[in-house]
């Protein structure tokens, strides 16, 4: 079976300077991949490279067996990718519903936008309660949900999520991770980059990113204290230095 999303030997960065190198990822339609790593490890750059939002120097990105080389972000959305970005990037002066609708503009789903809205409101009832509120006036957790919901509006095959836990209180972090788990359960492949390794509770596979390269791959079954130690070493160093 063709992988839903396949990344091979990716070298990417900004302004001619590579940030990540030799990234290899295989995402099946039923994968929930968690990419964990410290700040500056290259997590965001990886996702932006997949979305065509930064410079790709080497390597390939394929979606459903089709190469995305040179494709614009709008084409990638059309092909079935969607990104829930770091810092949410909602449209502050648009209402919640308008924000969600922007997620459907570039994809194939403009005709079916009413259905898509219903789906998102069912998954994220909080947004339904706030549909006429300006997004800029919502709390951080609500904006995070809105960003997830907006990404779902194009009915993506693979959902890319960038640090959904950022700046959220622990209870809200768990809530957002649960939402990602239910999106995964409904049949969408998920790639979530995270600093918070609690994501491993809902992922099927974990990749540790260090200094721009993949340092470890851990299948979900083997996640245990080992991941905690690995992440601790990756974030804090060994302690002997």
């Amino acid at each position: 079976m063709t992988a839903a999303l396949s990344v091979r030997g990716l070298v990417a960065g900004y302004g001619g300077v590579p940030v990540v190198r030799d990234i290899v990822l295989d995402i099946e339609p039923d994968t929930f991949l968690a990419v964990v790593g410290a700040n500056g490890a290259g997590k965001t750059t990886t996702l932006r490279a997949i979305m065509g939002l930064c410079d790709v120097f080497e390597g390939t990105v394929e979606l459903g067996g089709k190469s995305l080389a040179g494709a614009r972000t709008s084409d990638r959305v059309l092909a079935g990718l969607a990104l829930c970005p770091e810092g949410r990037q909602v449209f502050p002066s648009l209402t919640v519903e308008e924000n969600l609708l922007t997620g459907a503009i570039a994809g194939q789903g403009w005709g079916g936008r009413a259905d898509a809205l219903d789906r998102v409101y069912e998954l994220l009832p909080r947004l339904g309660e706030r549909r006429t509120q300006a997004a800029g006036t919502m709390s951080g957790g609500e904006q995070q949900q809105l960003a997830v919901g907006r990404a779902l509006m194009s009915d993506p095959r693979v959902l890319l999520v960038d640090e959904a836990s950022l700046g959220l209180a622990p209870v809200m972090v768990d809530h957002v991770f649960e939402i990602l788990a239910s999106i995964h359960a409904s049949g969408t492949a998920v790639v979530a980059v995270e600093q918070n390794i609690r994501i491993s509770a809902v992922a099927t596979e974990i990749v540790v990113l260090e200094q721009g390269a993949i340092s470890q791959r851990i299948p979900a079954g083997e996640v245990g204290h080992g991941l905690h130690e690995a992440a601790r070493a990756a974030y804090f160093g060994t302690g002997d230095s």
Partner: protein
Amino acid sequence: MEEALTFVVVGIAGGSTYALLALGLVLVHSVSRVLNVAQGAFGTLAAFVAASIAMGHGLPWPMAVVAGVAVGAAVGAATALVLLGREGGILPPLVGTVGILSAITLIEARWLGGTREFPTPVSGHGVEVAGVVITPTRMLVVAVAAAAGLFLWLALERTRIGLALRAGADNREGARIVGLDPRRLEVAAWSVAGALGALAGVLSGWTTQSITPGFLTGVLPQAFAAAMLGGMVSLPGAILGGLVVGVAESLTRLYWGGTPGSPELVVFLVLGAVLLFRPQGLFTRARRGLAFEGSESLVRLLPMVRDPRPGSMLARVAGPGGPVVGVVASIAIAGAVSGPDAFKLSAVPVYALLALSLNFLASATGQLSLGHAGLFGLGAFGAAIATTSWELPPVLGFLAGPALAGAAAAVLGAASLRVRGLYLAVLTLAFGVVLQAFVFPTDTFSQGGAGLTISRPELGPFDLADDGTFLAACGLLLVVVWAVLRRLERVPLLRGMVAIRENQTAASARGIDATRLGVAGFAISGVLAGLAGSTYAFRQGIVVASVFPVQLSLTLVIWVVLGGLGSRAGVAAVAAGFTLIDLYASGSNQLITLIAALAVVLLIGRQPLGAGGALRTLLERRRPAPPPGAAREQGGSEAAAPGPAPAPVAAAPLVVRMPDREALRPVLLGARDLTVRFGGNVAIDSLTLDVHPGEIVGILGPNGAGKTTTFNVLSGFITPSRGEVWFRGRAISALSPAGRTRRGLGRSFQQGGLWPSETAHANLLMAQYGRAAGTSFGDAVGMSPDQLRRDRRRAAVADEVLEVLGLGYAARRPVGTLPYGHRKILEIGCAVATRPQALLLDEPAAGLHGAQSEWVARAIAALRRELGITVVVIEHDVPLVRSVSDRIYVLDFGRLLAEGRPDDVLARPEVIEAYLGQPVNAPGPVLS
């Protein structure tokens, strides 16, 4: 009362045109951040096309109007395609729209029949409401404008493209992420703006019954004022703004009818008041970011700050010998030509001087003036009034021009402290219009329209009435100004201005205060424009109001950008070239200007730094290449090791006080109970920290923990809601960032603590500005011997720092072109060059790996060991902080989570949890 009502109705009809233009301006600005000077030109072109079709081919009016609107939309879209999506910031597209305005105006004059009738399609006696007669034309105008507004509103609210446009205007990065193509959005916005402009042109034509080439250029300030009333972001605000401006203008005509230019004055006053007191507009709530997005420096430039020491090859070529060559050349040229030719040629230095004055303003302050023709006029009238009306001696009269223009420019400079960027450009545009329409036609200036005469004097043996002698004098004046400008590039005053222009935050952090320098930059430019004006007055022998139009201001901008902002030679050459064409080829003048305008439009995207930029690029190629590995920087694997740890950077006392727990430990830098709230969010909550002399303290915490906010409070960029900061035994909460730097508290930035268009050497010079900078004018312009000595020392320190950092190759390269790792290292160098007692380092190793991040660790240790600097460092690289710090603080959600020795703190469960989240096997609230 009835009369007033009538004028209100007239005002609403006129205001409809402004509202449509303002809608287009707002749309374009929201999506592209460009000030579209050609907005009115889209309309005039549409009106001419409609008139040609209706009259030439006998098509019915509605169809002709539709065709005109289609042309407007197409030209709008074409403008976006040609001008946008290129490098170079927002000035090139602005200049491009000036070019398009000129091109369209010329096409109308030459190929579309020039001034012609524009009959209104409706006739009749009108309707009388409450004693006020409303003519059918006015009804039609208001109805069409209202319909267009309604249609636009519906399209934006209800359609896919409308939603995309609103999203793009609201958050461009967000729009990119959801897959909206920024280019397509821009083309859509510009074509809608073109259509709106086209309607405005047709409506305006119906109102006046006739159209002249470029007839909407004169109402640009009104349209901008309308858009500004809505804060440049609000569409309903733009409509309301248009109506308010229209009615205000109309009522001014009623109550102050006799005075020409009074409506323009009222518009200017309204605009000035709004910009100064409520720049976010009257109808919008202040929104962080967006409303002020145009307010940064407008220009991206060639390096401008020069080494204060003579010696480089280039400096010698253009150096002391330059003026001598210039003097000889002026005398030779003046001797060779005489009579009419000499008279003609004397215009060249005048306009070169004028262009240099605008060039100085733009390159020193980063601000753009669209009203420089007004300052030029003030200079000319000032000289004429002082010489002829007041009968002052000619030399004093000559100096009155620059004095008057300099004073007026200083007022604009004072305004620039509150209003910057595009907003200031609009204010200067209105300033120029008011001078031309209201001030210059008054009796004092124009003697009832006849103009002021002025005659050239005899100066000793030289009779300036002779055109050859006068030409030589003009040439000498240009040489003197040239030498002064050249000198200015080597003194602290200009360094301070450039520092503010490039990066105001970094300037404050290095101890540079914006207030005086901002006013001085404008004043100097005004004096230069006034000098040009004075000379012009003596050249012409008569000064009349009509020769200082807005069009001249716009032409100057084209010249300066074509010549290359910051490049004296390029700007002077372009100004001289165009002036010569104007003098000797005026028969085909229009065609040449058209070609020039189109050349600007096409070239400006490719070479945003103009002729000077192209020349500089050529010279750059002959400079030494960076050391191997410097330009290519792979995530750490083969990073260029930038030399050893810093050696002593300056002759600072070697006070090495290692922390000693037994001894009494005074506090060098302390914070008590700091709390910072952003809206409802608490960014920092009751934070207390102490830094002892000679310590290295690390501050850790996950993203959003409040680390950088803490630095911003300590260094004075954010005022805390509660709490106090102490430094060297004194509360410093009342000190500005610059004041804190001068007291010895330095800081670096995560990114953006540098001045990217200046060279590495100039960056280090600018970083030292706050150190022992003199306060007198002589100090600032570097004339006092003591200051000269200090300046040479600063340059030597800069050399030494570059040497220590291993960045010697970058001394003459713009910092923006250096590899990322080298910029980070230079950033530390700049912070150290302020010679602080305590230094706040904000993520000095962010984005660095391997050898470079190890270099940063060694450098931090060396700062204390060699220079006795106390260091507080924020880093995400925990191993780095662990290895260099004596003590660390860990923040989470703005609160202090832990404090102590690195190994102890990093072993605590709550610290690990803050980074990694709660342990997966711990009983979480909901996760299964």
